[in-house]
């Protein structure tokens, strides 16, 4: 029964414990409140169609919200269920891009029986009119953008390394016509208008033009950055995020010095949101790789669950919904809707428990926090 005695393992254990403690202290942030965060959690029960799905684009016409998720989906802003949107009486289509113009019209890219089309929806989505493709005829449609009362369409031709992207425009009624921005090797990531100039960005370059048709001249901020998103704000400044954690701002004449959102972090799309409806105080929501978004007030950036968040309290309302996911679209309800609400569209989460669409409504003087649609 007697076992052979060995040397004590205490020195080894002590060394391991010391190492573990150092690692722990390095990785922890005691400003976070674990148990409180758990206790404020609300079980998210959303619409099944948004489970493990991708909502790529969002819009509204003052009556309905619209979401592009393989098809166009809609629900009344006043409340109700999300349904497939019949376009021109037909729900047998695929849709991957849509925009709204803020004046009651919605534009959607459709593919019906393999043929692309762009439809304009009016009268609360009950009337859909096909736009004449014009210069888009024969091209593959990629994205729609709406800027300065102009509908832009990004399209490409060719395959593989021979793909060439081009930008086309329409006033929403006339046939699409080509701009002089053609033969791009990489797609655009967005368009902004500063009141005088259009600025469009690819992942590596920014082009500027006064007229929507062009000519476009390159005006890329210095630094050889890779860009993640571009968007105009309420003051017609244009913000450009980078995939290494920085932000440039175009004030109508020049790019600002680079501003740090969070160094070495991948930033994506941008959207400006009013922190309190009617306050004229805004923050940029800046997509942060697959980790939700940063809120940026022009001075400092915080994560969506940090102390001081404008849209997320309690923090669990962010960490159980947006955190850990890729933000693809943010949409503030239009003034015409009479509702103060933000929708956020996310990429597929790879799990059956996450949703692709959440909303945050301003009621009784406070944001409700994100909840599944």
């Amino acid at each position, binding site marked *: *029964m*007697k*076992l*052979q*005695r*060995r040397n*004590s*393992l*205490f020195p080894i*254990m002590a060394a*391991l*414990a010391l190492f*573990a*403690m150092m690692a*722990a*202290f390095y*990785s*922890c*942030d*005691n*400003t*976070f*409140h*674990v*148990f*409180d*965060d*758990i*206790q404020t*959690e*609300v*079980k*998210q029960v959303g619409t099944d169609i948004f489970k493990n799905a991708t909502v790529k684009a969002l819009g509204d016409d003052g009556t309905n919200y619209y979401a592009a998720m393989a098809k166009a989906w809609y629900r009344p802003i006043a409340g109700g269920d999300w349904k497939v949107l019949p376009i021109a009486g037909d729900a047998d289509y695929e849709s991957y891009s849509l925009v709204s113009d803020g004046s009651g019209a919605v534009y959607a890219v459709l593919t019906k029986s393999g043929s692309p089309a762009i439809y304009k929806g009016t009268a609360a989505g009950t009337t859909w009119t096909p736009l004449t493709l014009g210069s888009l005829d024969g091209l593959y449609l990629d994205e729609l953008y709406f800027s300065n009362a102009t509908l832009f369409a990004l399209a490409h031709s060719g395959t593989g390394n021979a793909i060439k992207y081009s930008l086309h425009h329409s006033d929403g009624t006339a046939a699409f016509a080509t701009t002089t921005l053609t033969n791009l090797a990489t797609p655009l990531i967005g368009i902004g208008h500063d009141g005088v100039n259009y600025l469009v960005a690819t992942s590596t370059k920014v082009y500027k033009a006064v007229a929507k048709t062009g000519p476009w001249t390159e005006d890329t901020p210095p630094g050889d950055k890779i860009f993640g998103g571009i968007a105009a704000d309420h003051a017609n400044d244009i913000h450009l995020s980078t995939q290494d954690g920085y932000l440039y701002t175009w004030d109508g004449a020049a790019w600002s010095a680079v501003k740090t959102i969070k160094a070495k972090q991948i930033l994506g799309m941008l959207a400006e949101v009013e922190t309190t409806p009617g306050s004229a105080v805004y923050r940029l929501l800046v997509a942060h790789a697959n*980790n939700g978004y940063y809120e940026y007030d022009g001075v400092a950036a915080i994560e969506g*669950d940090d102390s001081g968040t404008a849209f997320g309290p309690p923090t*669990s309302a962010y*960490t*159980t919904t947006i*955190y*850990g996911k890729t933000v693809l679209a943010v949409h503030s309800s239009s003034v015409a809707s009479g509702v103060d609400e933000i929708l956020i569209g996310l990429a597929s989460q790879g*799990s059956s*428990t*996450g949703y692709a669409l959440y909303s945050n409504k301003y009621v009784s003087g406070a944001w409700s926090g994100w909840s599944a649609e």
Partner: protein
Amino acid sequence: MKKSFALIGLIALVSILPLAAQIIPEDPFFGGLHRQGSQLITINVGAGIPLFIVPDSPTPGDPNPLSIGASLNIGYQYFVRNKFSIGGALSGAYNSTIGGRNLFLAPLSFRTGYWFGKGSIEASLGGDIGLVIMRLSGNGVISPFLKAGGGAYFQITNAWSLGGQAFWWFIPEIHFGTESAYTRYGNFLELSLGAVYHF
């Protein structure tokens, strides 16, 4: 949920059965395994049961939106006196929340134990004090950690015993100053099956 309770019941049963079944005369130091200078390693795997989370001023209905999870425990003890051991333990546990997140707990603790045995059954009572690393949604927090409980094991060879243990985990997540309102006290129950290796 029924499977979880069935598993917990099994673990609890295995934990207490050895204590109830023995009438063999006591060996004061369990064949020398509990003598001063002896050492042992314990390994336990089982359930991590969230009991309750309360603030400084608890009220009925304080939410505890955690589900039953799992726990793992590896410990080392050295007998500084007959039957009395000190050592350390590295534990791990996880529980999911109603919001679909996972709470990970990794306590690192100093342990004291009192060991005794009868026949082929050995048992221990003890307590731990240390720190726990808690991680939730990518955020980490370090908090004090206390646990108390005991275990019972059936000796199957000179060196090895198999059995189970039950420990109450107490985690005071204390915040100061303007954040003191976020102070909470987490309470968990570890019910686990395990092995003891003497050397």
